[in-house]
């Protein structure tokens, strides 16, 4: 495993690896996204309690799960960058951060749109909503911190450190629904228990979840390639590559 991963730390190898991967990821992501969302938004049965407005779950839940998933991925990359001093991992941190921030924003906005008909308010100061908002601020913090240093290298390292520190917030968000008695409903899908959702609604939801994950991977590959080119622009291999095109 390590022998297979290790060459990828080299920017040039990683650039070509991401280049090979991204068309496949793009195709898979767009396919599952279209399938999952059309199926979920158009063809699932109506909920007996919440009517048609529950359909937003097919966007809300995948983006909320992936907002935390993206943070976890970012934190793992940051940890790798700090411990093994791998430059490409630092660039991965900065490649993932805006994607995660957008997912968090989508989760918050769709949650607001869902909350208005269900709870009668666009926003309530509920534990889960508040902690999700904090997650958004953490993403902003990582990006702002990177921009605040005149030395790019230091900025990337410090942003990685902050990303690792911020993982403290992940369990708080995840368990907030169980720790505090709040308005936000509990988890619909869990790994261990039988899901509290009908299979006819569950499958499109899982499809959308997969789609959101693939979109994240695809965009990360694209952004990472750009970051590699930008940071390595003085290296011969980049000059050769740019000259060839």
């Amino acid at each position, binding site marked *: 495993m390590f022998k297979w991963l290790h060459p990828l730390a080299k920017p040039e190898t990683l650039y070509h690896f991401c280049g090979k991967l991204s068309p496949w990821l793009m195709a898979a992501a767009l396919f599952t996204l279209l399938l999952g969302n059309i199926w979920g938004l158009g063809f699932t049965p109506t909920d007996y309690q919440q009517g048609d407005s529950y359909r937003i779950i097919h966007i809300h839940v995948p983006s909320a799960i992936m907002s935390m998933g993206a943070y976890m991925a970012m934190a793992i990359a940051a940890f790798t960058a700090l411990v093994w001093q791998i430059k490409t991992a630092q660039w991965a941190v900065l490649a993932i951060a805006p994607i995660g921030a957008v997912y968090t924003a989508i989760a918050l906005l769709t949650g607001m749109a869902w909350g208005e008909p269900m709870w009668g308010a666009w926003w309530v100061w509920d534990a889960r909503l508040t902690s999700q908002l904090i997650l958004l601020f953490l993403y*902003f913090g990582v990006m702002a911190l990177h921009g605040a240093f005149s030395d790019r290298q230091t900025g990337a390292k410090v942003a990685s450190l902050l990303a690792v520190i911020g993982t403290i917030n992940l369990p708080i968000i995840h368990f907030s629904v169980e720790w505090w008695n709040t308005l936000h409903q509990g988890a619909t899908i869990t790994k261990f228990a039988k899901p509290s959702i009908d299979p006819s609604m569950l499958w499109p939801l899982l499809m959308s979840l997969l789609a959101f994950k693939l979109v994240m991977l695809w965009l990360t590959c694209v952004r990472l390639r750009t970051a590699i080119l930008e940071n390595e622009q003085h290296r011969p291999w980049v000059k050769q590559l740019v000259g060839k095109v």
Partner: protein
Amino acid sequence: MVSYGVFLQRELRLLARQKSDWLNPVLFFIIVLTLFPIGVGPEPNMLRIMAPGIVWIAALLSVLLAAERLFKDDYRNGVIEQLVAARHALQPFVLAKISANWLSTGLPLVLLSPLVALLFNLELPALQAMALTLLLGTPVLSLLSVLGAAITVSADKGGILLALLILPLYIPLLIFASAAIEAASMGLAYQGQLAILMAIVLFALALVPMAVCSALKINVS
């Protein structure tokens, strides 16, 4: 252990010479407290309900105000660079910095809490809870603000960035501290919340100094 004592002495001597470093945050705390009744109206019952939140937010802001300058001078005149080069001296230096920060900005807030209770008509149980939560919570405020100062020490625009980074991390503390004071003012038991605060202190004390050291190392290299 010896070097910790030496560093602490140095920090305290510096604080004794630059009184504005610790006096201003304390004054700021009192001024923020006096602004709230003007802003939301002087209704005593409402102020009593809002007091826990107001006190804690004022404490957060005043600690944050002191944080920005924590490492700036030591960074500019090269002390931190020397300590990073000396390797073993960095950890006691960081611990001394945290202790001095708590003694100069956290402890005064704990001592001021009876005065705050008078200003907001709090009763004795609520006052006790407030003093206890401040006693347990202000070390965490110091730890996290030192962490923020270390992360941003070589940044071009450190001040506002520091607030943006550190305030989200304060939130768990704020939740449990104000829950404890609220429970106490309703005559309920609040040992549970205090235990969680204690756990947060110990957790932060174990991990934050390590993170501060690595942040300083990154900023120097």
